[in-house]
């Protein structure tokens, strides 16, 4: 079984570029071929292939027994995934939009996340919860959230947020093989959908063979000496764009893609902060009690003496509004990131 080459450039050096959707599906199909115990269930995952192309082609290869359309009954089928996982299978269950978690919260928060612990380790819950996250296409408050913090907050769930096709595949292999529940959050805007164009970044080279990316290893996307920018998901690409702009002005930003929230790679963040002394954290979740606050707290705990300035950009504690002018206001953009870095650099 291949493991990740830490030389990212080398690993992605291949003529074969895939969208994030294709890369994710490739890993799922590989695992389903290898292991009869892996199956996928969700709404519109069979004939439709997933509303955000998370299961394209799987029905044709594996049939309805293993690629199951389910009733709009999230409590029942997500809870059933917990039960099947406890019985030793490796279900992948899709929550169409992460925003829909509310109707099945008990199964996720009180069963999926806690049964391993409450059983004193006598049960495992080796399931993957795949779910689409994020806004930028004006779908308003019930279909645009990321809820990164909501899932990372409660102990017992591993939380994965790929930002490229390469990561999407490696993290999916790791997620399915993991003996714990893994929440795999894919950003709609990064999937490479024809009807929701992606930025150029997420489409990368992807090796044909299987490979895993260990959880808890952040990726330094761009080394820099002046300011550390820690982010994930869509905002990795916005931060990279901002870093390019800043480079023209002689500001050297280091961009870190967390890749997984649980476990969180604190060391990579601290190493960077010790070097730059300045920290900007950017995400697409609500600002308060969330990812940005957590990263800053860890930086303060681990490298307070090295820190001279911190800042964060997130959704400023309002539900995601519908109108374009309003959503653009609250979702941190490339310019916002560049401006915040400049401010820190002064």
């Amino acid at each position, binding site marked *: 079984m291949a493991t990740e080459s830490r030389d990212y450039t080398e690993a992605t050096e291949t003529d074969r570029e895939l969208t994030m959707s294709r890369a994710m599906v490739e890993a799922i199909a590989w695992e389903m071929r290898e292991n009869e115990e892996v199956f996928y269930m969700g*709404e*519109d995952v*069979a*004939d*439709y292939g997933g*509303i955000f192309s998370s299961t394209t082609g799987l029905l044709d290869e594996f049939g309805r027994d293993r690629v199951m*359309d*389910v*009733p*709009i*009954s*999230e*409590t*029942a089928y997500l809870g059933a995934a917990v039960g099947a996982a406890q019985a030793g299978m490796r279900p992948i269950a899709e929550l169409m939009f992460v*925003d*829909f978690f*509310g*109707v099945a919260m008990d199964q996720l928060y009180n069963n999926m996340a806690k049964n391993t612990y409450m059983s004193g380790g006598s049960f495992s819950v080796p399931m993957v919860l795949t779910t689409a996250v994020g806004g*930028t*296409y*004006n*779908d*308003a*408050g*019930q*279909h645009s959230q990321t809820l990164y913090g909501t899932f990372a907050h409660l102990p017992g769930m591993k939380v994965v947020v790929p930002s490229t096709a390469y990561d999407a595949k490696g993290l999916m292999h790791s997620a399915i093989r993991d003996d714990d529940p893994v929440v795999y959050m894919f950003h709609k805007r990064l999937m490479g959908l*024809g*009807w*929701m*164009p992606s930025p150029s970044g997420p489409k990368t080279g992807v090796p044909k063979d299987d490979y895993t990316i260990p959880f808890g290893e952040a990726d330094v996307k761009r080394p820099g000496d002046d300011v550390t920018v820690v982010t994930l998901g869509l905002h990795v690409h916005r931060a990279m764009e901002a870093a390019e702009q800043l480079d023209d002005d002689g500001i050297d930003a280091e961009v870190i893609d967390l890749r997984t929230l649980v476990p969180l790679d604190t060391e990579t963040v601290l190493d960077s902060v010790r070097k730059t002394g300045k920290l900007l954290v950017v995400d697409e979740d609500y*600002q*308060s009690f969330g990812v940005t606050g957590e990263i800053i707290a860890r930086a303060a705990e681990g490298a307070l003496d090295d820190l001279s300035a911190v800042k964060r950009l997130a959704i*400023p*504690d*309002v*539900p995601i*509004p*519908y*109108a*374009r*002018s*309003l*959503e*653009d*206001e*609250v979702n941190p953009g490339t310019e916002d990131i560049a401006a915040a870095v400049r401010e820190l650099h002064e």
Partner: protein
Amino acid sequence: MVSVTDLQTMYEQMVTARHYEERLVDEYLVGKQPAFDISAGPIPGELHLAAGHEASGAGVCMHLRDDDTVTAPHRPHHIAIAKGVDLKRMTAEIFGRKTGLCRGKGGHMHLFDPDVNFACSGIIAQGCPPAVGAAMAAKKRNTDSVAVAFLGEGAIDQGGFLESLNLAAVHDLPVVFVVEDNDWAISMPKDRVTDVQNGAQRAAGFDLPGVRIDSDDATAVYEAAGEAVMRARDGNGPTLIEVQVHRRMGHFMGDAEAYRPEADIDRAKQRDSIERLAEDLRSHGVTDDELDEIRERAHERVEEAISWAKEQPEPDPEEAYENVFTNPPAQAATDGGSATDASGDADETGGDN
């Protein structure tokens, strides 16, 4: 028996709703062709159109007053129109404008109009519990208001619906649940995900009346809903109605419906509830000229609403910080103190906060 005047009113609601959806198709596709980009154009985001569902909204809402509550799902336009939601401000909301029903914050699947007690939820079946709550309030206050929850057939497997049936039944609350069965939950046909073909059967398990209307015949809906609303108003508890409707424009705009057999699409288009009602009206002696007049009036109303909406200003970005709370904490701002004062001063939207 339904009067000819009521039939004409229903016809007008239905042709208004149909024309509205047809016009929204045109407006929605602006900026989205040749390459379809969901976030481009004057109406961004998802758009779930209700062409083929008109009979249900019109037939039920004919029995409702402004003080009766309606909750609608992600496909709400025909219901909103039949309930008397302000069409101009609803349209402005769909265009994401400042003077929209929700000041541009809700969009097409989250329409709220307190003047006629209309609300939505974009989450499947989650409009049911609030409808039960409105009915609870009516009962506690000894009014004869009722509440109606609209949902799709895909929603009848959801806990929020089933729990609502029980809560309404055990307290004899004045609620009517209206299931619009268009055969498809996005790409999932009913028989793949639901083990009953007649959704009204769900009622039996909760000891309340369940009625299925096998065709989207506005008159039949009118009659069944009349009985159910009267039963609720008289304090005799909830009713479940399922109406066969048809999905003529895909689940959402941009849905190529590759999963759907051609024959099914054709069948849906052949069964036109509006044409059926026009036949009924003709058989009652209404002339083609009179029908034309109704249609023209409806079309004009739709055009006026769309033109008005397009002239409305977009929200100022700072408005994003308003309305999180009705009574904002003195220091609610968490964005570094730059949030604007959200004290909710009266403004030109005429909102009633």
